[in-house]
């Protein structure tokens, strides 16, 4: 990176920390620290929800995904708008009425203490580990492409934000997320503009779409019935059916029962403003994801007029240069470069490029390297073609996207630890002490996530892939518990607790079978199976295990 890039990157990150410290001066009690005294307007709730969901990998991987697999990933969000309406009708008013800090507090009032403890524990495990990965994944990409030290990249990616998150709590998170989203969208818009600007004269958006369409990158709608006439492909991750049904359950679970999201809309100054934030999220998410993916198609079209690297991840080429394939690599690289020159001069179709790329991937698999190049495409384009200064801004975008998501998660992990565990099991703690402990827990979870990120790097890709599916292993069961709580008023805590344990074990076993490719099923369906499993099994077990029929939850406040 050039000096102006470093300057822009450092300045953006420092401004963000200073802004978080300045805006995060909250009142020194739990209500102020975790809920920003419930004073946040709906548009900040909206930006907070979006900033929490969109991690660094969203902006790194999504364009790369469109480049390789096309835009069908957008279907993953088709269930989200409907889930927002269901949440606003059923979940949100209950959380507001009971004035809870965490979603799991409600479960004790509805069922019993052990169901609350189990659900909060599942959240802490799943979120603590997956946040570590969400630090590690972009750090690995940046350190591979830019040659940065991985330990320092992890610390900057997951550690600097701890400063304002510990100090300012939910208020600092909300205000920084607002600024982060503005910078992120500006950066992505500039990147998109530069792609079009650098294309040859007379080539515009229409030509980009034609190129993308001809090469199958505009496969936005797929039905899952496309392959080989064998009926619906249950292993296909992104299609209309899995997007609407699986995506609906995933969104319902994520926004309704994941404290990192519940904590965002509980900061709203009224029930209506919470609802507006969520409903607007339902309307903007699909177009937003469409535009991010479109950047990937634009980069794809860009490389039709410019030489495309043999492999986007430079560090893996270095790996091959130090392997037994060293000599073969030199020959293949020379042949590929000649082919690219010929293609750009109009003398070749470029169809043979795939053969060369497949050879590189095969060699990398053989030497234990990382053959998945998707996550490196967009950032390689940024570093190779964006002007000085803008490279720094786009790398700042990656950091800010990570910070927005991680800071909200640390705040939620801390709130669950203090509200669902510490406060319940150690009585007589003063308000000031609770506040101090909350800051301490935020710091602890920040350090924990950075440590997990480092561990993930040391253990390699297999762990990252395994932990990436962690959400699907837990979300369905947690959603099932909440669905029973809201819609099956006669079901008792005992039945739902036992059902959740049994189904959780079943889902984990199924997840392992899918991972080992013994069962061919997309992970998205685990959310449906987990939720439906808990609802059905608790219905069956309730007459056997039910000791008492709970009354409707008591009103507080």
């Amino acid at each position, binding site marked *: 990176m050039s000096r102006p890039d470093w300057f822009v990157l450092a300045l953006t990150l420092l401004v963000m920390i200073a802004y978080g410290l300045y805006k995060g001066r909250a009142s020194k009690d739990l209500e102020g620290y975790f809920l920003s005294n419930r004073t946040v307007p709906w548009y900040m709730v909206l930006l907070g929800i979006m900033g929490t969901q969109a991690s660094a990998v969203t902006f790194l991987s999504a364009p790369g995904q469109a480049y390789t697999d096309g835009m069908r990933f*957008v279907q993953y969000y*088709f269930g989200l*708008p*409907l889930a*927002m*309406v269901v949440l*606003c*009708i059923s979940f949100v*008013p209950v959380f*507001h*009425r009971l004035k809870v800090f965490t979603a799991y507090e409600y479960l004790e009032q509805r069922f019993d203490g052990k169901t609350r403890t189990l659900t909060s524990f599942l959240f802490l495990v799943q979120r603590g580990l997956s946040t570590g990965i969400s630090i590690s994944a972009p750090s690995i990409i940046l350190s591979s492409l830019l040659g940065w030290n991985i330990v320092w990249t992890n610390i900057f990616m997951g550690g600097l934000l701890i400063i304002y998150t510990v100090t300012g709590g939910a208020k600092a998170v909300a205000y920084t997320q607002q600024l982060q989203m503005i910078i992120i969208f500006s950066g992505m818009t500039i990147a998109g503009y530069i792609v079009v600007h650098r294309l040859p004269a007379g080539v515009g958006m229409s030509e980009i*779409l*034609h190129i*993308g*369409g*001809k090469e*199958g990158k*505009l*496969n*936005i*709608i797929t039905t899952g019935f496309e392959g080989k006439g064998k009926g619906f492909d249950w292993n296909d991750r992104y299609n*209309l059916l899995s997007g*609407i049904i699986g995506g609906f359950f995933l969104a319902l679970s994520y926004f309704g029962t994941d404290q990192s999201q519940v904590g965002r809309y509980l900061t709203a100054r*009224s*029930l*209506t403003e919470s*609802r*507006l934030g969520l*409903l607007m999220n*339902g*309307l903007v998410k*699909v*177009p937003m994801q*469409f535009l991010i993916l479109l950047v990937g198609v634009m980069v794809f079209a860009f490389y039709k007029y410019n030489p495309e690297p043999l492999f986007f991840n430079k560090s893996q080429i270095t790996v091959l240069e130090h392997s037994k394939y060293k000599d073969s690599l030199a020959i293949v690289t020379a042949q590929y470069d000649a082919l690219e020159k010929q293609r750009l001069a109009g003398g070749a179709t470029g169809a043979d490029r795939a053969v060369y790329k497949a050879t590189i991937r095969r060699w990398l698999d053989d030497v234990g390297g990382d053959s998945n190049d998707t996550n490196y495409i967009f950032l390689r384009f940024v570093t190779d073609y964006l002007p000085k200064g803008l490279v720094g801004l786009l790398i700042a975008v990656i950091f800010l996207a990570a910070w927005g998501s991680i800071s909200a998660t640390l705040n939620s992990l801390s709130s669950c630890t203090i509200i669902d565990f510490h406060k319940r099991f150690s009585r007589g703690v003063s308000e000031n002490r609770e506040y101090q402990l909350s800051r301490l827990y935020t710091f602890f979870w920040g350090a924990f996530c950075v440590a997990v990120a480092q561990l993930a790097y040391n253990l390699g890709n297999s762990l990252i892939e395994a932990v990436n599916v962690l959400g699907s292993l837990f979300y369905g069961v947690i959603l099932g518990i909440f669905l029973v709580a809201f819609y099956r008023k006669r079901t008792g805590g005992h039945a739902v607790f036992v059902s959740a344990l049994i189904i959780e074990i079943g889902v984990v076993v199924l997840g392992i079978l899918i991972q080992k490719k013994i069962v061919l099923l997309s992970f998205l369906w685990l959310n449906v199976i987990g939720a439906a499993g808990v609802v059905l099994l608790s219905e069956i077990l309730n007459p056997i295990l039910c000791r008492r029929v709970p009354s409707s939850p008591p009103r507080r*406040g």
Partner: protein
Amino acid sequence: MDEDRVPLFRKWSYWYALVIGFLVVCIVFFNLLTKHFS
């Protein structure tokens, strides 16, 4: 105590109609885009 009212509309059914309509428009638009440029 917060007032439990529907934002922007009188009934929740209007919100259901809006998001389902929005989704249908998105799917039709995306499908046309897929077909037109393929």
